[in-house]
């Protein structure tokens, strides 16, 4: 194989694929990028058998071929070549050589024999999604997904259609986030659960792309994304997401409306004083028109903070994990937020005031 291309294009293509190729003790070739030339394009692929990425760039191909090269070494080599340089990559026997006008590096390569194929895009369903909508949907909820695989179906972002909107949901069973975004394409987006780690990779690549639209194809087991010159395919989680609508409390026992910035500041202060369980206490007294938040830690001390709020409903004394409350704030775009409590032991509902597209549920902590 012998090819010539510019440093910036090559670096960008590698950066899309390099992170996927991690450490894999059982099949070492998976730590590699697969470089393959076809006509006047260079294809760069990587996979961890959960997600696969293929990025292509135009290149001057002098001799066709395929080679597998350790991802991080190749990436770091190319990254530290000054931009706007022409790079020549040649493969020979067990090495590849990266040549610039001023340098020459030789990297040991792997046998391409064992490098798996990246599954082609499913044909069953396809749609065009506005990139920013898809990114918004995922990022608004993904932090709530479970990072263990005890319940596989909760370790992903659940996507399903609802009329003209597409709904994104994630939960780790202690809190749940739901975001509804407009899907200008097809309204029949099939129900699917994408592993949350893979959604992060997808978002990273989508954000780096200059295109505005992403083509999504889905079947029962696989989802693929095509944007610009990058193709991503991910496994879908095979399971059924719980019918979470039933746990959204229909009533309002105590409602507190606060300014988002005030709330964020108080939470930040409380975070200094929380113990290892991150526990904070809300004491809501509608008669005195007062909301107080307390946190204490044996090592640090304690703090009691009042917050300006409009309050209605019953009085309440309830505890939450601070982290769960902090997590959600960046994803609420309204100036003020509504905290709807439903009595002891029942989930707290958080929404942006006058924003119906986002919903967050948190379970309280025991005493």
């Amino acid at each position, binding site marked *: 194989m012998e090819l010539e291309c510019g440093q910036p294009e090559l670096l960008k293509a590698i950066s899309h694929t390099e992170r996927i190729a991690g450490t894999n003790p059982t099949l070492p070739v998976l730590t590699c990028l697969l470089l393959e030339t076809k006509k006047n394009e260079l294809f760069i692929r990587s996979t961890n058998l959960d997600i696969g990425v293929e990025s292509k760039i135009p290149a001057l191909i002098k001799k066709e071929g395929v080679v597998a090269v350790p991802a991080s070494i190749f990436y770091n080599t190319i990254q530290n070549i000054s931009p706007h340089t022409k790079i020549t990559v040649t493969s020979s026997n067990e090495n590849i050589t990266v040549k610039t006008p001023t340098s020459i590096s030789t990297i040991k390569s792997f046998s391409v024999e064992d490098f798996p194929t990246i599954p082609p895009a499913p044909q069953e369903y396809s749609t065009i999604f506005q990139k920013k909508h898809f990114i918004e949907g995922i990022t608004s909820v993904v932090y709530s997904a479970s990072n263990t695989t005890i*319940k596989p179906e909760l370790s992903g972002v659940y996507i399903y259609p609802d009329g003209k909107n597409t709904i994104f949901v994630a939960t780790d069973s202690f809190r749940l986030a739901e975001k509804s975004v407009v899907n200008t394409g097809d309204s029949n987006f099939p129900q699917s659960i994408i592993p949350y780690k893979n959604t992060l990779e997808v978002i990273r690549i989508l954000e780096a792309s200059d295109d505005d639209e992403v083509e999504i194809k889905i079947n029962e087991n696989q989802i693929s994304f095509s944007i610009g010159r990058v193709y991503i395919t991910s496994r879908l989680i095979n399971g*059924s997401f719980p019918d979470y609508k039933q746990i959204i409390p229909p009533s309002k026992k105590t409602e507190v409306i606060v300014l988002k910035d005030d709330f964020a500041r108080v939470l930040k202060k409380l975070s200094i004083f929380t113990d290892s369980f991150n526990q904070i206490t809300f004491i809501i007294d509608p008669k005195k028109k007062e909301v107080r938040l307390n946190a204490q830690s044996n090592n640090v001390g304690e703090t009691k903070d009042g917050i300006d709020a409009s309050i209605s409903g019953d009085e309440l004394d309830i505890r*939450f994990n601070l982290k769960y409350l902090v997590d959600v704030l960046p994803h609420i775009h309204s100036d003020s937020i509504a905290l709807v409590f439903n009595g002891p032991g029942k989930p707290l509902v958080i929404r942006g005031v006058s924003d119906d597209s986002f919903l967050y549920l948190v379970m309280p902590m025991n005493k």
Partner: protein
Amino acid sequence: MIDTKELWENALVEVELSISKANFSTWFKNTHIAKMDSGIVYIGVPNQFAKDWLAEKFHKMILKTLRGLAEEVRGVEYVITRDDKKRERERRDTRSQFTSNELPLENFYINKNDNLNPRYTFDTFVIGAFNQLAHAAAQAVTQKPGIVYNPLFIYGSTGHGKTHLIQAIGNHLKKQSDSRKVFYVTSERFTIDYITSMQEGKGNSFKEKYRQYDVLIMDDIQFLATKEKTQEELFHLFNALYDNNKQIIFSSDINPNQIPGLEDRLKSRFNAGMIADIPEPDPESRIAILRTKAAQNNFIIPEEIIEYIAGEVQGNIRELEGALNSLICQSQLKGKVLNQNEVRDILKNNAKPKKNVSPKEVIKRVSDFYEIDEQSIYEKTRKKEVVKPRQLIMYILREDFSISYPSIGEKLGGRDHTTVIHSCEKIKNDLKNDQILVQEVEQIRSLLK
């Protein structure tokens, strides 16, 4: 019949020797034989990557190895399956009391492929004298699906555990064999499905969809009454499944023979299998149910309180559960075990208000029910259409309201108490043989509640 597990283990031993260790542990880990069907071995793999790679690189070797071990193997296919074994839930013990409560998601898992709620299993089904027969029939079906008791028809009033029982059969059959296609559908859903498919001109795909199942469970069949076209479709579906020895399970709130507007040909087919009813739970069963439900909620409740609730709440199981739930909630709030007085207060709020029904009311309701003139009950007429309701009124007044024979006679136009005794005896005897009469009495009683 070949033991597929053993076959695959033997095959893996051979495969392991002929490929590199890296390849073996990457691609053959977490694989199994999902099923074998007329010579084709379906290998279950965890993801698309493995599916493509096995088919591309190792197909010949797998086929050859399998054929070497079992001659009848003609082909190999790969399917992506989920690994259920990982789903063990043991975390609960390790969690400290400080962590957050969980969202009660656990209760809302419904599998989209078969619509079964995994919560409904035989383990959680409380068996008492009242549902013994239905339970035994269900158990028999799980042992020989499609052969004994096909169709199985379970009927009983709302909240008596029909849905639980028939879903438990489905869940059990599914657990027995992964490849068995079980499907649970309510008759309402079935109707909607049918209508939509007709509107979209996809009648065939509707037929195909339902005909592929090995076990079809249809709930609340009484809603099909008067929907003639849907009934016809069900009739054909029934025949198709029945002829192939596929198990079919139905439920309704009354005996199929008494569902008005249900076609005779369907009724006769229901009668071909087993019809079991689940009547109202007896007091002992109510106690057993309460105990089980309390244990499921990790709630300790004194024996005398359980007996008290079982005596007070006489309705269906759902009402029992409701009463218990509000009890649990209250005692968690108060942080202590409630005493009998407090329990009584809670149940008072919970219980349906008992109406005081006067004998006059009974007479009115019954004569309305039989569409006769109320006045004729008091008269001395012996017309057949009046005599029966009149006897029924006497029976109900005696049985349900414990009014003395002479005073019943007095209230019904000054009849002798021996007449009343005779009437009550007659109805009692008739009830033993006349199913329709039993239904009528039940309906009248429910009108009076």
